[in-house]
């Protein structure tokens, strides 16, 4: 029980410290902006550890974070193989193909106002559909290896990117387009110098949504059949063979990868659309 009590004491003191810090005069500093959420996250881990140890929860149900960390450190080779298979081969390739296809489609559709009006509602509808369900069909069509995973990812990321890009390409107002017209700018010039930059904030919105979808698609597709590696494969077999600590290590990898992927996109967005009001802060 002492572990549980210690965890509760830690929770209360961390909470008190956070309340104090967020009302202190340092609250606008960068350090405080990182420290408060970091302490919150650590508190969750400590509580988890305390509950598991204090109440003697079986490791088969919920292993303590410390055990997960040990497993993580001991099986980095397996985790790396799975990371390469699921993320680099499946999710990332599908992401790149899907984004490229959506961008090309968006540019083609954009040339016709008729098509744009027809496709936006349909694209919005498709973006809301549970597309993950196509995973078994893609595994059937493209086999067990990364190709089928990439195919699921392509379909999942296509519509959010398409809809956002088409909307972004329409984001310029008539005044700006008229100005380009008075410069006698050609279609390509207007596109490159005005409309594509103006579409970037929308595009990055779609890209950030797509990072999560890409990982979800790649992992779900592995539940339907994969070579004997990959995060989804390891998770589904780990649950069956009760090596729950490895499953949690795999979940930790998935969480890290998802966060980093999103973070990289957000970082690129800040560098590329620094001029946009939402980035100037």
């Amino acid at each position, binding site marked *: 029980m002492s572990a549980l009590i210690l965890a509760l004491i830690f929770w209360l003191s961390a909470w008190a410290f956070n309340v104090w810090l967020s009302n202190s005069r340092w609250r606008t500093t960068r350090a405080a902006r990182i420290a408060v959420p970091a302490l919150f996250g650590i508190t969750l881990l400590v509580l988890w550890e305390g509950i598991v140890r204090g109440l003697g929860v079986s490791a088969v*149900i*919920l292993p303590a974070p410390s055990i997960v960390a040990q497993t993580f450190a001991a099986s980095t080779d397996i985790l790396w193989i799975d990371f390469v298979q699921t993320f680099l081969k499946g999710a990332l390739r599908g992401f790149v193909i899907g984004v490229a296809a959506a961008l090309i489609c968006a540019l083609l559709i954009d040339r016709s106002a008729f098509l744009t009006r*027809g496709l936006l509602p349909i694209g919005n509808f498709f973006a809301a559909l549970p597309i993950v369900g196509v995973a*078994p069909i893609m595994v059937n069509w493209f086999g067990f290896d990364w190709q089928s995973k990439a195919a699921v990812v392509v379909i999942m990321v296509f519509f959010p990117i398409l809809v956002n890009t088409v909307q972004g390409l329409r984001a310029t107002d008539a005044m700006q387009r008229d100005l380009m017209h008075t410069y006698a700018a050609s279609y390509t010039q207007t596109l490159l110098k005005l409309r594509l930059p103006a579409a970037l904030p929308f595009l990055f919105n779609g890209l950030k949504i797509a990072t999560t979808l890409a990982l979800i698609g790649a992992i779900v597709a592995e539940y339907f059949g994969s070579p004997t590696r990959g995060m989804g494969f390891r998770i589904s077999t780990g649950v069956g063979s009760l090596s729950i600590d490895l499953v949690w290590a795999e979940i930790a990898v998935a*969480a890290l990868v998802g966060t980093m992927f999103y973070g990289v996109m957000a970082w690129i967005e800040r560098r590329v659309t620094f001029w946009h009001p939402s980035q100037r802060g």
Partner: protein
Amino acid sequence: MRNLLPILTVLAVLVGIWYLAVAPMNVRVALDTVERGGAEVVPAGSATRRDVSVWRLMAQNAEHVPAGYALDRPRLPTPAQVGQELWKTTGAMALKGRAWSKRSLLYHGWITLQSTLWGFALGTSLGIAGAIAIVYSRVADMSLMPWAIISQTIPIVALAPMIIVVSSQLGVDGRGVPKAIISAYLCYFPVLVGMVKGLRAPALSQLDLLKTYDATGLQSFLKLRLPASVPYLFTSLKVGIAAALVGTIVGELPTGAISGLGARILIGDQFGTPLAIWSALFAAAILAGLLVTLLDLSQKLILNRMGMQP
């Protein structure tokens, strides 16, 4: 309604592409089937055909291509086949009075809908509660908001099997609860973000006005912040319900569930019946469309009654 013609055109083009794609997708299976039926196929034998491209197979066996449009287990069914299968497992069964049989998609759709709505209710309440905490407490704003964003970058499907294991070990019966948790996890975030925006939407001058009326915190919440957030709430509810449905289906897919639309997809995969997969997919799509439309209508109705332009 001026969008109707373009939408119909795009839909017609999509269906046309689908019909065209059926021929190359199914030609191998079709040739195998007609060959087994005793017909002449060039080149003979399924193994020798494996190295021949589908286009050559189609050119050399033009008279057998239509067989690809009427297969029992096609790689890519035609839209008409999917429609027939959908009708057979919904309307036709309902007419025979067996709407709630285990083979009916209405039954499985109902199971999925239940989990979706529970998850939606849970996720929406969590999202609204979190948004209120974030708007009123600075420490919640600083500590919760970054984790809310991080939580969405974690692929929930990785967690889904664990949620099911833990909840079954804790003695929770059935699969409804873990599915609802997964869909709540996916749908709380849009509601949280939308509500934070909505609760912060009133201008400073409006908040000041309420202060001059000596309004309490609760009064200014109920009479100003909450009404001001309703348009934002509905916009995020529409995103949220779609996400909740995705969550339920993700919760049904990898876990060996036996009822629900996701389970139909899973079972269709295991038994090699593509038509079952496709009809379950379309049923899920129709369900998503219905739910979003329903919310859209209630948004228009409520905003109208509140005197806001939807």
